[in-house]
């Protein structure tokens, strides 16, 4: 027979242990946070509108004359002040490590008073939850989709906060970087044809032509792509759409697309950037597209079995390696092209889809880029947020820091590329749209 006393006893023990652990931990460690959010310091008075300093030399040249460390602070901000409180944001998975790092820096700078909690729920969910007003800010790999934007047009602002680049990694044991000491050259046309299943083997003359002096093996190409919906796929396919007309006519672009290579050749899907990265590492004669960091963190492993490709920018005809300078140059050139085409820089409260299209396949620089956009409301009180004024103060403090100090190399995570100055200033202007 069961001992009648034993049940309550063990339940009680478990309960006591759990409660004690929870209370002790939360009580001891939550001290600095939590309490009512009372802004201890007011926001620094909005800097007299960040005058878009005439920038004369954004484009061309593979090695821009201004190397990274000299990125001048857009304006001399006083040491940032941070209020006490917390913000909740969510969205793109890609930007999560960077957001997390910014959040931690601000947490430390504020002495633990300012918590920005960002969760990677995916770009689509980020936009949706922001529009539902469940999040203080949203982040996405693509601008707010047009149909959704039209419903809230004039009420929200969006601006880029960081750039990512997408690299083409390949696995050809005979031609690994370790063996031959060089990386392959690829063009938008060849990449498109591989993923369209038209180029089936590495020794295809269209690839061979780009890589004279390299003996490509006659092996079938395994074209690895994402199986899940992804901003990386959106940016990658948008680039091919812009750069190679037949791709535009047959495949198009989006979070997910139908890959002709799956039927016509050896195309295969993998989940997540980490899945594609792993599949290319372990599958001989494969090619894949991943965010820069997934290559950079495994560079030695890739060099042992293959490498990362130089990609030709069709507009200036040069091959670019995905370095920080080349990607920043590409972003600046894309923005400049937008300005020429539309007569002015984009404003933060307009539809940004045309802007993202101009960023893709830019006139010069490394051509495959992915931006992360942040969504904010113009008037948090009117949108029905509780404690709107506190929230706005916190949001402005956080993103002002992100767009200035946050773009310095010591605050940018490996694999992410800081914004060119003109773009950071657009973001700062967006903050002035947000009503205090």
């Amino acid at each position: 027979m069961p001992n009648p006393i034993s049940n309550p006893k063990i339940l009680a023990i478990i309960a006591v242990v759990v409660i004690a652990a929870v209370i002790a931990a939360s009580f001891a460690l939550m001290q600095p946070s939590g309490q009512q959010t009372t802004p201890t310091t007011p926001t620094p008075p909005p800097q007299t509108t960040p005058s878009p300093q005439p920038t004369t030399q954004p484009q061309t040249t593979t090695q821009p004359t201004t190397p990274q460390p000299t990125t001048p602070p857009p304006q001399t901000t006083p040491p940032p002040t941070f209020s006490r409180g917390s913000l909740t944001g969510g969205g793109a998975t890609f930007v999560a490590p960077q957001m997390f790092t910014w959040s931690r820096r601000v947490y430390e700078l504020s002495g633990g008073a300012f918590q920005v909690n960002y969760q990677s729920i995916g770009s689509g969910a980020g936009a949706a939850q922001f529009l539902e007003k469940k999040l203080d800010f949203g982040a996405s790999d693509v601008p707010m989709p047009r149909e959704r934007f039209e419903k809230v047009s004039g009420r929200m602002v969006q601006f880029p906060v960081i750039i990512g680049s997408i690299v083409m990694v390949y696995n050809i044991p005979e031609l690994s970087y370790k063996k031959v000491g060089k990386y392959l050259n690829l063009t938008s046309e060849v990449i498109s044809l591989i993923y369209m299943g038209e180029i089936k083997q590495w020794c295809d003359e269209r690839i061979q032509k780009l890589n004279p002096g390299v003996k490509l093996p006659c092996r079938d190409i395994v074209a690895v792509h994402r199986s899940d919906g992804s901003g990386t796929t959106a940016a990658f396919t948008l680039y091919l759409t812009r750069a190679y007309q037949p791709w535009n006519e047959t495949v198009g672009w989006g979070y997910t697309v139908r890959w002709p290579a799956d039927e016509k050749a050896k195309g295969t899907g993998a989940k997540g950037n980490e899945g594609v990265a792993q599949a290319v590492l372990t599958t001989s004669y494969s090619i894949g597209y991943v965010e820069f960091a997934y290559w950079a963190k495994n560079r030695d492993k890739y060099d042992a079995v293959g490498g990362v490709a130089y990609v030709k920018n069709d507009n200036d005809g040069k091959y670019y390696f995905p370095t920080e300078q080349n990607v920043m140059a590409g972003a600046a050139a894309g923005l400049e092209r937008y300005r020429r085409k539309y007569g002015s820089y984009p404003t933060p409260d307009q539809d940004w889809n045309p802007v993202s299209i101009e960023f893709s396949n830019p006139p010069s620089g490394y051509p495959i880029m992915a931006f992360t956009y942040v969504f904010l409301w113009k008037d948090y009180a009117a949108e029905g947020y509780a404690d709107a004024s506190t929230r706005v103060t916190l949001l402005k403090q956080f993103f002002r820091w992100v767009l200035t100090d946050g773009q310095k190399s010591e605050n940018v995570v490996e694999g992410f590329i800081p914004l060119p100055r003109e773009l950071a200033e657009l973001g700062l202007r967006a903050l002035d749209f947000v009503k205090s």
Partner: protein
Amino acid sequence: MRKQLNTVGLALFAVLAFLAVLPLFHIIIDVYTKGISAIVELGGLSFLFDIPPTPYDNKGGVGPLLVGTLYMTFLGAVLGVLLGFPLGVYIGEFRKEFFANFSRGGVNILVEFPTITVGLFVYALFSISLVDINPMLEGISNALASVAGGWVKHFIGGLSQFNAYAGALALAIIMIPYVALFTASAYASIEQNTREAAYAIAGREYRAVFIVLRKAVSRAVLAAVLLGTAKIAGETAPLLFTAFGNVYYAPFTEATGAIPLWIWYAAQTPYEVQIASAYGAAAVLLTIVLAIFFAARLRQ
């Protein structure tokens, strides 16, 4: 010949049994070898209290996530038992009634439900009800805080859309059918003699069912409770849009972290330190689950 066949058969079963548990031990050993070295590297004991590492850090931990997991699992388990146990008694002891059959069908469906839909249900529930319940909760919170002190506000107050209680509710809904079905089958297996005896000595029906008969099945029910608790401790999907996740210590009325959510995120990143923290977090979670599991086995 027959003896030899017997030996061969037994050997075959032994091999099959070994193969069946092999993955389990492989997982446990893998998680612990990688997890413990990761924990040591990331700060040893402080791994249990620190906030998670950014790609720049080389130290970090699962503090806020551990607190969130323990709190939500505890609340979810309590709520799950409070609702699941009486339901199980009804289904098991009064199984001839129409509504008991009806409930059994419902519970059987619920146990197979994709857990993420439970999370969505709770999300929707909180979406529409917060406006109405928040003024009340704030009133209670202020009243309690004036009596007991400000710490009350870490637990009770106006709720954000994402909070620990939403997470706990989702976990409770997942737990209910486990407890109910185990309880029902335990009650159904009570012999008729025992039941008659219980009714004879207990007086009122309530006492017969909930006090006398309960003692006959308490071991099975307790095991069910503990197994259910172990299950919900490791759930990720129902927490996505309810607790949402948080990497800082925050009041339970706001977005709350949980270990499975962190593992899910960190394992996908390319940064070694975050991947290591995911292994460490997995070891911590596995320890919690195994501890509960062994507690359940010991009671049986």
